């Protein structure tokens, strides 16, 4: 009991000293009372470090830095900083008449180190940049104790930033939950409802535990508030997770969209189902890989931007393969959709095997550029990765580009004309054969862009396209033939629905459910979401 009491007393003294420091004007030297703790055992030293952190100021910073470097020591009643051969008084900074060798240096163990980092946090909470302050606040709130309350109050008074204020308020509430005063506890329980951290929820849940007949929290009002706050946290966590799911659905949808857009164009224009479309994705991804390899060898300084340079490369590589396919094979299969299925499947076999032999059967490695790694943390455990955000943006960009091409250019007009009525378009002088080739090249190029996007989030290997072909066909089926808007809705819808189902039932069951959903959906709307109605929609 004795030592414990002593420590408590000591702490109190230190706090009074710290408070005195805060209250008074800035002074040149530290209050020696603040440093008194360093004479004691580890516990009192830790208390002293905390107190220094709370007190703040350049002098405190200096002392702490010295401690961290192992240069702080004691001789008798004095606390000294050893600086090479000179020895200074820690409180005043004046040189002391003590030999460096005589100073009994304070050893830094783990406990001290923890306390130091907290003290540093406390220091930067008051003086750092916004990011530093936020990190410091989060750091401190994890091990918050009553000793930090004054610091929090002081920081809160000066703090303008909402995020930091939020963290601070919650940290204070957390401390106050253990307060003896029920009103304080109530206030704290209410304030914690603002959090979206599952850890905070656990903390509140402790209050609601019942031990025999006694509640962990005796006051009913506090318990009610805690319950309400838990519900609020649950809601917020659920919302964050939903947003996360919608987001990953969107990013899957973007990939599906990039894969399906090309498919929709080629099917709309030529009535040919291109089973080798997935391999065009693969070509785009390998083109990206090639660009990355070139950048590594020749432009290592610009490596972060290889993805941007790969955009045209992936597009044209896939478009070139597409044109070759169209010229050599597909051209001869117009009006024979079922056979075109088989021939293009054959093409895909050839392309996959060719890539296996040329590059090798293993997956190749593509690195995200640094600006695409990391992400935005929405809530604890829910992160929106940058690469996926970029992909969504990229899909939007491609979509806009296609829309402009289709609506505003002569080629787009021709493509639309051929889609609607090939013989009539031919009759009025549209060069249908050239339009076919160009449309196919565009469709293939978009698939190449899809491959580029895919290479940033998935494995790149010769058979990578196979996994996406069924899904992108589903998008075309669902969206309706030749319907840009249909493809967009179908891709995003499928992406989001799959992700939600995945969270609920696992990936395989989700796939099966989506398939069943599509079959049921087609029962109702055989022509897809955006069906053309009327006698011309016959089929």
């Amino acid at each position, binding site marked *: 009991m004795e030592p414990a009491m002593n420590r408590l007393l000591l702490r109190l003294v230190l706090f009074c000293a710290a408070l005195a420091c805060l209250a008074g004007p800035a002074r040149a030297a530290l209050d020696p009372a603040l440093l008194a703790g360093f004479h004691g055992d580890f516990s009192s030293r830790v208390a002293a470090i905390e107190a220094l952190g709370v007190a703040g100021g350049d002098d405190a910073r200096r002392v702490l830095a010295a401690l961290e470097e192992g240069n702080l020591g004691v001789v008798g009643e004095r606390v000294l900083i050893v600086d090479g051969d000179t020895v200074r008084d820690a409180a005043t900074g004046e040189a002391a008449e003590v030999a460096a060798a005589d100073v009994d240096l304070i050893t830094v163990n783990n406990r001290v180190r923890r306390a130091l980092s907290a003290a540093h946090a406390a220091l930067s909470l008051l003086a750092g940049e916004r990011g530093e302050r936020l990190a410091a606040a989060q750091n401190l709130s994890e091990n918050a104790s009553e000793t930090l309350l004054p610091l929090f109050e002081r920081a809160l008074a000066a703090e303008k930033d909402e995020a930091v204020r939020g963290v601070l308020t919650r940290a204070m509430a957390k401390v106050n939950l253990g307060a003896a005063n029920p009103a304080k506890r109530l206030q704290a329980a209410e304030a914690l409802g603002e959090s979206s951290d599952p850890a905070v929820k656990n903390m509140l849940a402790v209050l609601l535990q019942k031990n025999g007949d006694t509640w962990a929290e005796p006051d009913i009002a506090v318990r009610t508030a805690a319950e309400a706050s838990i519900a609020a946290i649950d809601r917020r966590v659920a919302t964050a997770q939903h947003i996360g799911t919608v987001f990953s659905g969107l990013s899957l949808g973007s990939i599906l969209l990039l894969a399906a857009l090309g498919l929709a164009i080629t*099917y*709309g*224009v*030529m*009535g040919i*189902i291109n*089973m080798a479309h997935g391999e065009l994705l693969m070509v785009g991804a390998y083109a990206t890989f090639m660009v990355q390899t070139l950048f590594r060898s020749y432009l290592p300084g610009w490596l972060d931007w290889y993805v941007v340079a790969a955009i045209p490369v992936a597009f044209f590589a896939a478009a070139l393969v597409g044109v070759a396919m169209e010229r050599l*094979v597909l051209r*001869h*299969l117009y*009006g*024979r*959709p*079922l*056979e*075109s*299925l*088989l*021939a293009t*499947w*054959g*093409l*895909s*076999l*050839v392309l*996959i*095997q*060719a890539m296996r*032999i040329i590059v090798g059967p293993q997956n190749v490695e593509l690195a995200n550029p640094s600006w695409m790694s990391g992400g935005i943390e929405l809530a604890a455990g829910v992160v929106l990765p940058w690469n996926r955000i970029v992909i969504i943006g990229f899909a939007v960009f491609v979509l806009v580009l296609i829309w402009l091409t289709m609506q505003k250019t002569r080629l787009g007009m021709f493509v639309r004309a051929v*889609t*609607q*009525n*090939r*013989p009539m378009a031919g009759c009025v002088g549209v060069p249908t054969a050239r339009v076919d080739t160009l449309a196919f090249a565009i469709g293939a190029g978009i698939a190449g862009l899809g491959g580029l996007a895919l290479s940033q989030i998935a494995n790149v290997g010769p058979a990578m396209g*196979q996994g996406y072909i*069924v899904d992108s*066909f*589903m998008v075309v*089926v669902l969206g309706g*033939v*030749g319907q840009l808007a249909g493809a967009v809705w179908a891709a995003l819808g499928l992406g989001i629905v799959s992700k939600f189902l995945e969270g609920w039932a696992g990936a*395989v069951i989700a*796939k*099966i459910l989506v*398939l069943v959903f*599509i*079959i*049921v959906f*087609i*029962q*109702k709307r*055989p022509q897809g979401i955006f069906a053309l109605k009327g*006698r*011309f*929609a*016959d*089929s």
Partner: protein
Amino acid sequence: MRTPFTVRLIQSMPRGGWIALAIFALVAWVGIPFAHLALPESHPLHVSAYTVSLLGKILCYMVVAVAMDLIWGYAGILSLGHGLFFALGGYAFGMYLMRQIGRDGSYGADLPDFMVFLDWKELPWYWGGSDSFAWALFLAVAAPGLIAFVFGYFAFRSRIKGVYFSIITQALTYAAMLLFFRNETGFGGNNGFTDFKRILGYAITSPEMRTLLFALSALLLMACLVLGRYLVTSRFGRVLAAIRDAESRVMFIGYNPLHYKLFMWTLSAMLCGLAGALYVPQVGIINPSEMSPANSIEIAVWVAVGGRGTLVGAVLGAGIVNLLKSWATVSFPEYWPFFLGFLFIAVTLYLPDGVVGLWRKLRAGRKAAPVAEQPLHTPPPGSTTDPLPEGATAPQHAAPATAAKGAAA
């Protein structure tokens, strides 16, 4: 007077067809069993165990090809999911084979090894009755039949046709493959079923059992051919072909295409299931990769290579491609996918009627022979996937030209 049914059954096949069947039966039931069982291995005419199993396997493939041709060649419905029905039949019979292993598995337990491995304590409910041979056979037909029926009912009812139907069947088999890959599904996951020991208590690897399975496969193939021939020459077959060519006309003269397609589709799936049930004991393994979309689409290529719309074409195609495959995957495995891919392309571009069509063309070149079966490389008029809208002012179909081409082939 109506002609009696049995007479019509016999008349449905020309005499040459029956003779060919008889020769085939003689070879499959007498020649090969004799050459395998009676002749010593050193004898030049001895047929090895490997060859018997290989031929038996190909016979099963031929049955699948006939089933595929009935639905694709005659009803114009291209299924890219027939591998699913084949595999389901195989799995159904495989369950029985797994139970026949008894305690001879590596864990010596009553349950199949993979269940012991997963720490399961009892058989899942759907394994009930799997120790009965009759139930296994029933399941091998009923499971694919039921799935085909339910799927077909919804698909045909909403008039899903052409490539849409094909793609959805592909998605179906793809989804099933993913499902069977899961260990929790209860069919051995990745590895599927293997290490079979017995059928009806007799060792599965004995020469007699091997020969019996081969002979049964031959019997199934012949039964399929007779049944198929009868179907396509009956009024049912004519309605089916009419649906392929002009579905709306068929509806307006009072047939319900849904029922016709559904019947053929389900029957086709059931035949595949039977073939799968005979296939599994002969190759000794069944795993989810049988359900991969690639396998199903390969079935379509067998039929295309042989010549769709002719039953003999389906049989020939399955034989040619699979013999080539078993030779090529050993001799130059690297290049087999190239070869298969180019085969897909070449057949659709240059041999729309397959080898049967080619043979006919060559024969017709020498003398103008009447055409027994109608080759089908012309798309049906008003093809459902025609990208052109079928409007009132749409130009006339080049029907006489295409039909003339068909007749001349």
